Structures are given as structure tokens and as C-alpha cells.
């Protein structure tokens, strides 16, 4: 692997006594795209916010987050920075494209002036003409016509707003963009356009990407590696083809089986019973145990994430999957 850009170890987020994120380790190389997959409440968005140190005050985070700027600058210990110190990191080194671009733009400021504020945050002395040129360049980069600069958010379509959000994220030339469900509110055609844009930006700007989505097929298309989260933990991680082609955790396997695929089976697969667990009522041992058709006595003990085939890790006592016991029917409350 090429030089690491981001190293996260033992990331834990607590809300009072509940564990929202439970010991997440992540490594990201320069220019790499990592997909963070999972259902609602699994901790994927909380992980994103904690990487930016943007968690609400009620949540406490622990664990090391180290960024190695690719321009050769000093190593940045994100977890130890003060709020003031973080302001120098956000948008300049790491940007976040939030879920729901509809609500993240200022409704009473023109698009151009919002991008200008982002630029001036880090380059307060920039000349007006330089800022204007940079805005025009950014809009061009994300495939928007120059006139969008004069527009207000309500005059734009959902896809255009998402492009503006991406332009904002790029305003200070970060080396890492975290995109939280960037296409979830969009139709498939617009989704395809935005994904193509993200891919082009990676290629042209050497951008690293953490893409967060509940939609595994979006991640399959866009990412190099993937990490599947369940109840605050990473339960499986590896190269995207390996995880999708040969999942080693029963949760990943069942999720993939339930995805409809054009040209694939026109019958519904056996669904995963029950619903994602509430962090306040997380089961002991393996948190997928109550929904898992392979659960056995061993699962009362929490499995650690370990490499089960070269390059691919899973948090399951029975991985690799050749060792899964016979499945049984699980009686769970309807999800």
C-alpha cells in the first residue's frame, strides 16, 4: 500500500453509557476510496463526524486519528487538536459532504458568496479577483455553469445543490473528502452523474474519499475497499471485489443476498429477520447474534475483527465462511 493518509485506531464514541462507535480502526492510503456501509444506527455517520471532530457535545470520543498531509506537511493528530486547531484542518485537509444537500446550504446567500467564505476561511488575504477565478474554476470542476454563482439554493435542483456542496468541500484543496450518503436523496440518473463526478475528482485531484452509504451497490461501483459496520463495529473489511464476491461475515452475506440485481434472480432472498439493534439495548457477545442464522454458543463471546483470508477481515467466530455451521430459522420480532 502507498503512504497512509489517515490512520484511525480504537475510535470509540459514547453517549452516556451507550457505545455508538466501538473500537473502529481504519487506514486510508492517499487517493484511496473507502466505502463505509451499514444500516441506520450502525455508527457510520457518527464515525464520519468524529473524524472531523464535529460530534455534538453530548457525545464523547476516544481513540487516535492521525492525518499525514500528502504535501509533506507535519503529521496532524486530529484527536488531540483544540477546536481552534481543528478549524485549520477542516476544509483545508479534510472536508465533509453532508447527507441532504437540501439543508446544508445557506438559503439567503448566493452560491458564489458561500464558496468565497469557504475560501477566505483559510486564505483571508486572497485577492477578490483570485477568489472569483477560483469560484469559477470550482463550479467548472463540478460540472456547473458559471451562472450558478449568482443563484440561491432554492433555485437549484437536488443534483445541482449536491454539486455545489462538493464544490464547497473542494474549495480549500483538501486531500480527503468524506461524503455521507451523497446520493441518497437523488434519482438513479442523478446519482450516476454525482458518482461519476466523484470518480473524476479522485482521478484528477488525487483525492482520497470516504464514502458512507447504506447502499452497497453504490459502494461496489465507487470504492477500492469497503468496511461494513454493524452496531458500532466494523464486522467485515477488505477489497471491494473480495467483500462483494466472497463475503466472510453472515451479515454481509445476507445483506448482499437481499440486494435486487438486474439480470439476477427474480425471487426475493430470505430476509434478515428483525431490525438493526438500538445501541442502548445492544446484545451481549456478537451483536448480530440475535439475527444470525448461524449463531451458536461461541457467539456469546464478542468476536474480534481478524484477517480470515489474505487482505480480508471479519468479526465472526466461524469465519471463513466454509466453517459456518448449518443455518437455522431465527425467530425475531418483525423489523
Amino acid at each position, binding site marked *: 500500500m502507498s503512504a497512509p493518509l489517515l490512520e484511525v485506531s480504537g475510535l470509540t464514541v459514547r453517549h452516556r453509557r451507550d457505545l455508538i462507535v466501538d473500537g473502529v480502526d481504519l487506514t486510508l492510503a492517499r487517493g484511496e476510496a473507502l466505502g463505509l456501509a451499514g444500516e441506520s444506527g450502525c455508527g457510520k455517520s457518527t464515525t464520519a463526524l468524529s473524524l472531523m471532530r464535529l460530534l455534538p457535545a453530548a457525545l464523547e470520543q476516544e481513540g487516535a486519528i492521525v492525518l499525514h498531509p500528502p504535501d509533506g506537511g507535519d503529521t496532524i493528530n486530529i484527536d488531540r487538536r483544540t477546536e481552534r486547531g481543528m478549524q485549520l484542518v477542516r476544509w483545508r485537509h479534510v472536508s465533509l459532504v453532508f447527507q441532504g444537500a437540501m439543508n446544508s446550504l445557506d438559503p439567503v446567500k448566493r452560491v458564489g458568496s458561500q464558496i468565497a467564505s469557504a475560501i477566505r476561511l483559510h486564505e483571508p488575504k486572497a485577492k477578490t479577483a483570485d477568489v472569483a477565478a477560483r469560484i469559477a474554476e470550482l463550479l467548472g470542476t463540478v460540472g456547473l455553469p458559471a451562472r450558478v454563482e449568482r443563484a440561491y439554493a432554492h433555485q437549484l435542483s437536488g443534483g445541482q445543490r449536491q454539486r455545489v456542496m462538493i464544490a464547497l468541500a473542494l474549495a480549500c484543496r483538501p486531500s480527503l473528502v468524506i461524503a455521507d450518503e451523497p446520493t441518497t436523496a437523488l*434519482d438513479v440518473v442523478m446519482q*450516476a452523474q454525482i458518482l461519476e463526478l466523484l470518480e473524476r475528482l479522485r482521478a484528477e485531484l488525487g483525492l482520497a474519499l470516504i464514502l458512507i452509504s447504506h447502499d452497497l451497490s453504490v459502494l461496489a461501483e465507487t470504492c477500492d475497499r469497503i468496511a461494513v459496520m454493524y452496531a458500532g463495529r466494523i464486522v467485515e473489511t477488505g477489497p471491494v471485489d473480495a467483500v462483494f464476491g466472497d463475503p466472510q461475515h453472515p451479515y454481509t452475506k445476507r445483506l448482499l443476498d437481499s440486494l435486487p440485481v438486474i439480470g439476477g434472480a427474480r425471487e426475493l432472498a430470505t430476509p434478515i429477520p428483525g431490525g438493526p439493534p438500538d445501541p442502548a439495548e445492544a446484545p451481549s457477545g456478537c451483536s448480530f447474534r440475535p439475527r444470525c442464522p448461524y449463531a451458536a454458543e461461541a457467539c456469546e463471546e464478542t468476536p474480534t475483527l481478524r484477517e480470515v483470508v489474505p487482505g480480508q477481515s471479519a468479526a465472526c467466530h466461524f469465519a471463513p465462511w466454509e466453517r459456518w455451521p448449518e443455518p437455522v430459522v431465527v425467530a425475531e420480532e418483525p423489523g
Partner: protein
Amino acid sequence: MTPLMEVRDLAVHYGPAKALDGVSLEWRRGEILGIVGESGCGKSTLARALLGLVPPAAGSVSADGEELGGKASLRTLRRSVQMIFQDPYQTLNPRRRVREIVAEPLVVTGVVKAEHEARVARALEEVGMAPARFADRYPHQLSGGQRQRVAIASTLVLEPAGIVCDEPVSMLDVSVRSQILHVLLELQRARELALLFITHDLSLAWQLCDRIAVMYLGRIVEQGDARDVIERPGHPYTQALVEAVPPRKQRNALGGELPDPAALPAGCRFHPRCPRRFEPCDQVDPELYPTGEPAHEAACLLLRGGSSPESRSDIA
């Protein structure tokens, strides 16, 4: 056999916007019909028009062979055709218990009270919600999937012949999604229900639907057997939709966005975005032409009589 519902040359206008513009469609008994398209294509308006919730500007809607008009026909319709919505968080009355929510259609239609409890219990069981466990809960005590199950149960108590499902699983978690789809499919089989499945997700339509109608800017641009339409789309728009479903092998997303339905393009309304447009497309508004497969038709001039597939690719 008379279709469950039928629309003929239906138009619905919202001010200057033509939300539906000349739609003709049959929804047959017992079939799962998919209505597919991007937001703004008119698919939800079509659903509302079928239920008599928006007045047509032109054309007709009929149920069981009878044209909808007066209050009496709407009342009959609402017993035989029900609807569930996308957002299970917004459609249930938060101050009512599950048993009351599910019983409400019985109250509204004047079914004798003695029957309520048994019918509510049966409907809840059919959607996998044990009455003893769930009947006394409030919506906030339920998960998203459980709420959608309650919404389905409340359509079942009137023993409908069809349910219109407007993006019923798009707001649910992946693992819960397939549970709800299972519930709907089992009901469809057991009760010979007709389902009208509105979705922007073609892969879902592939998995569930018998037939598909693809909509673009207030029109049906293609319809036919689900497998034919998705495997051999006759309209370039359908083809673009199929190709946009992730994970994609090629990168060739359709450019542009849906035009304003108040300022429709002249000629074929898809021509400004169409990768295969040719000379007459900005002048001639295409009707639905046969694609060559049984009951499969598409509104594209490439299919107009005389142009063979070979000459088509030359033009494109």
C-alpha cells in the same frame, strides 16, 4: 376480463405544469404493475389520480369498467383499491394505538363494530405483527418497518382487490426492506391482490413486477413485460435508466435533468437529453409504437414503421 383499473388519455395539470399528459394504462387483476421513473415524471400523480385524489383535466379513470365520477363511484373505489405511502413515519396517526389505526377504515366505511376486532387481528397477523404484542402500541413505539406493516394491515381490513404502493420501502433499512417486500408478495399471492408498485429503482421493479410502465415528464414512454422492458428496452430513456442502476459497468450517465413540466420541449419530450436523437425528434411527438415483442411498446421515433434496427444505429 375487465381490468381492475384503467386510465384513458388521462391529463392532470397543476397550474401551467402538465403533471400527466395523455396517459393510458391498464392495471389488471392480480398483477404487479411497476410504474418507474425519476421524481417529477408524474408517477405519484398517476397514483393519486387512480384513487380519485386529483381531478383529471382530461381523459378518464375507471375502476372495474365503470368510469369514476360521482361520490358513489369513489366510495366503491376506495373499498377496492387502497394505498400505502413512502414515509411510514408520517402516515400513521401518532395519537392512536395500532388497533385503532388498523380499525379506522372499518369505522369510516360503517362496518359493524362486532366485526372489528377479529378483522383487525387477522390483518395484523397477515403482516407478521402478533396482535397480542403490537395491537396496543403507539406508532412511536414501532420501528420504521413495523409502521409500514401497520400501514399495510390498515389497507387489508377492507379486503381490497388492489393496493397502490408509492415507494413503500425506499425509506427503510436494507435488511428491513426485503421483509416488507416479502409481506407484500405473500399477500399478493395469498389474496390474489393487484399491486401497483411505484418506484425509481429499476432493480426492484425487475425483481417484483409482472409488467412495467416507464414514465417521463407526464407520459408513459414504454410499457411491457418487466423482463422484456429491462432486458431489451425500446426507448433510449429506459435504456439510460437501466444503465444507471449501480453497480455500473460503464460510465455513461445520462446528462442534464428533467425539464420543467410547465415548459415541455417540442417534439419528443426526451429529445434534449437523448443520446440517439435524429432529425425529426424535435418536431414529431412520438406515440407508443410496437417494439416487436408481444404487448411491448415504446414512444420513440426509432421504432416508427420502416426504420430497421440497422438503419437505426446509422442514424444514432
